[in-house]
């Protein structure tokens, strides 16, 4: 099976049509503004579990979609809460 992404405008489409976009989260514990910039630019939480992310439907409607995925299984999940 291949990863398919449910586009609200185009229906389920192969991941090949999409561009992945990370939504960076800089931990509050990092206080120094320069350190926050470095973290935002380069570091990743690399969630081992449910992650909120943006996908751009490049070869389709060319719109951004925000989705929740379990990074351990690549299953799409409902937004928590």
């Amino acid at each position, binding site marked *: *099976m*291949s*990863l398919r992404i449910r586009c609200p405008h185009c229906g389920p489409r*192969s*991941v*090949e049509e*999409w*561009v*992945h976009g*990370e939504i960076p989260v800089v*931990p509050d514990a*990092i206080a120094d503004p*320069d*350190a926050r910039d*470095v*973290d935002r*630019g*380069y*570091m*990743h*939480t*690399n969630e*081992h579990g449910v*992650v909120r*992310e943006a996908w751009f439907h490049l070869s389709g409607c060319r719109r951004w979609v925000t989705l929740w*995925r379990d*990074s*351990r*299984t*690549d299953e799409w999940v409902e937004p928590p809460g």
Partner: protein
Amino acid sequence: MNEHPEAEITLRWNEPEVSYDVVIVGGGGHGLSIAYHLATRHDITNVLVLESGYIGGGNTGRNTTVIRANYGIPEAVRFYQHSLERYRALEDETGRAMMHDRKGLLWMAHSEAGVRQERARSAVNQAFGAETVYLEPDEIAEVCPEVDLTCGGGFPTVLGASFHQGATARHDRVVWALAEGAMRRGVHVAPGTAVIGLVHDAGRVVGVETAGGRIAAGTVVSAVGGNATVLADMAGVRLPIRTHPLQAFVTNRHQRRFDPIVASGDLGFYVSQTARGQMLLGAEIDRQPSYSRRSTHDLLASLSHRAITVLPFMRELRVLRQWTGSCDMSPDYSPVMGDTGVDGFLVTTGWGTWGFKAIPAGGEVMAERIATGVVPELMAPFALDRFGRDRTLADRGSSGTH
């Protein structure tokens, strides 16, 4: 060739004791290479290697075992060339066959952009000791007559870069030889033992937690593949790593010997023949960060298409097995080695899709850092703090997987 090397290699596992000078988390090529070099080069043997599964069962056993040094930046060429030379010596040094096979690597370009990249890369390779020569299309036909130089008419081959020293080795044997060499000198290796936490004392990492209890450590080294950020998070260290799946597959046996490793940057594909005669194919990483090791039909279909475009004879072959590994990708496509800002906690990570070839040198430099406290010259450019210092080592075009 002896097809049953496990009969001659002696591996005896250990129950972990309560305290070690060095605890290495991750019993793959890198973790065991660090242990091996600590024991053989620095006489440090009060060392434990912890592995959650079986040794070499992670990404060391899931890659395509290509050994080459034709990278795009001086720091990387130097490092990988050293590693390649160390690989060549490792069979004699350990007394264990690793099926090291020097095949040569043919890297083809089908576009002006591809040619530009290969020319730039070859110049850097030559300058830093990784001998690379250009081949015109007629010369490619001599080296590898199976290649369709027009690539189905769609991708006429403009230039080839030939890296004569390109090789492959058998991943299991590399892992077993390093493990055996380390254990013979007193290093403990404990498979089936996962680290579930780190022990802190006054801002320092002083040990690891396992299901079997706490193990104290002078130094904890993360040589984890796939879960590098999970372990680093326990230490309070942020890493520039996203974990992406990388898929590969082998076909059934091709009756003729197929010599070079053939790669195409423009088509995003590479192939080599295993010792069993199977054709082994790899391509780009999956685009989403994920810990899933699921294989996809998309990749299988697309990679097969690319393969028969370059090598039409592969049309007749059948796919035997397909599998997936977890690659720790850094933003600059270079590894991350050394200090983390947290005392007692070192990392070797960011091995993305280029980790197998780095096993000898990666272990050697990390062992030296642990033993002497000094960062070796080969390792220094790859420090974690390079991102904050604006000294990234961009080498995307050399990975062969993008």
